[in-house]
């Protein structure tokens, strides 16, 4: 009980500190999603605390991901008119992105000679964890490995996304939302909300659509 609370508090403390750091110096690599886990991992390694002890507290925070995902219904409702107006652009670009995610993960994994089960585990890595794990088991991957690659995608995607936006001068709210939601699920969506509420909402829709497209397409393709 005390350990549980202690690790929840520790996570909160480091998270809010890294949020302040990010506000003070908003560099892409200082995102709290990278800084917080790195600090916690180092602390666990130094103090020899095993992950399962940490996760006694951590799992409660992970559990909050579900109600937080449901909360996306609220911006979806608020900006429904914008979404309806741009339905075709969103559907088309998310579809192409989701297809690209599966194909490129498989091809690059093959090119790097990763074994088949690892390749299959990486195919659904762009989408939200529960559906990604589901897809993974449908096509012969290992769901827990998929979960790790999904979180890696979230962390790296929050760093890569802003770089791509800068590189290609993507200044359109719609395109920015689609880019984050399709490429880096919930973590990307949280980044998109940093840019604007419209981008964030479009990102949440894109995240859901990408997951549904992947769920339908992956068993046909792999």
């Amino acid at each position: 009980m005390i350990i549980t609370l202690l690790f929840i508090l520790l996570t909160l403390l480091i998270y809010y500190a890294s949020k302040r750091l990010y506000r003070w110096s908003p560099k892409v690599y200082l995102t709290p999603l990278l800084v917080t886990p790195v600090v916690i991992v180092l602390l666990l390694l130094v103090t020899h605390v095993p992950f399962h002890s940490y996760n006694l507290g951590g799992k409660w925070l992970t559990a909050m991901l579900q109600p937080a995902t449901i909360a996306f219904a609220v911006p979806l409702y608020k900006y429904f008119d914008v979404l309806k107006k741009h339905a075709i652009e969103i559907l088309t670009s998310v579809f192409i992105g989701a297809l690209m995610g599966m194909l490129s993960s498989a091809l690059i994994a093959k090119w790097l000679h990763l074994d088949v089960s690892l390749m299959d585990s990486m195919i659904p890595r762009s989408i939200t964890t529960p559906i990604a794990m589901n897809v993974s088991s449908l096509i012969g991957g290992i769901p827990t490995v998929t979960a790790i690659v999904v979180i890696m995608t979230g962390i790296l995607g929050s760093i890569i996304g802003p770089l791509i936006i800068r590189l290609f001068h993507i200044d359109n709210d719609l395109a920015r939302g689609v880019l984050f939601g399709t490429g880096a699920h919930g973590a990307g969506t949280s980044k998109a909300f940093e840019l604007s509420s419209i981008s964030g909402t479009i990102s949440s829709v894109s995240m859901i659509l990408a997951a549904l497209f992947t769920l339908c397409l992956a068993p046909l393709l792999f």
Partner: protein
Amino acid sequence: MKSIVKGILQIAFFILVSFVMNVITDFFHLKIPGSILGIILIFILLKTKVIKLNWVETGANWLLAELLLFFIPSAVGIIQYKDLLYKNGIQVVIVVILSTGLVMTCAGLVAVQLAKRKERKKAL
């Protein structure tokens, strides 16, 4: 003070919905996760005015603002897979970086082009 209580109650509401949705997906063995069903349910309830926006808005804003916090323990959990990371870590990271870059570029640029085309059509 009143708004803090309101926010906490609204978050409790989202937790309740999430719990009920999980029970439903388990019971019917659905392939769609409870959280996606929950989004659809709350959206329909808002659309049909069964619940009012201000009954859930504060709580939803809080949850969404702290979304990253809820990813942190899973990110820390990567240390459980040291063997996988030692053996294939570099390759896995390369796949994630290249493929994510491709997905974002494609999705983003297609969206830009489609939005531009629509603008042009409107101008004619």
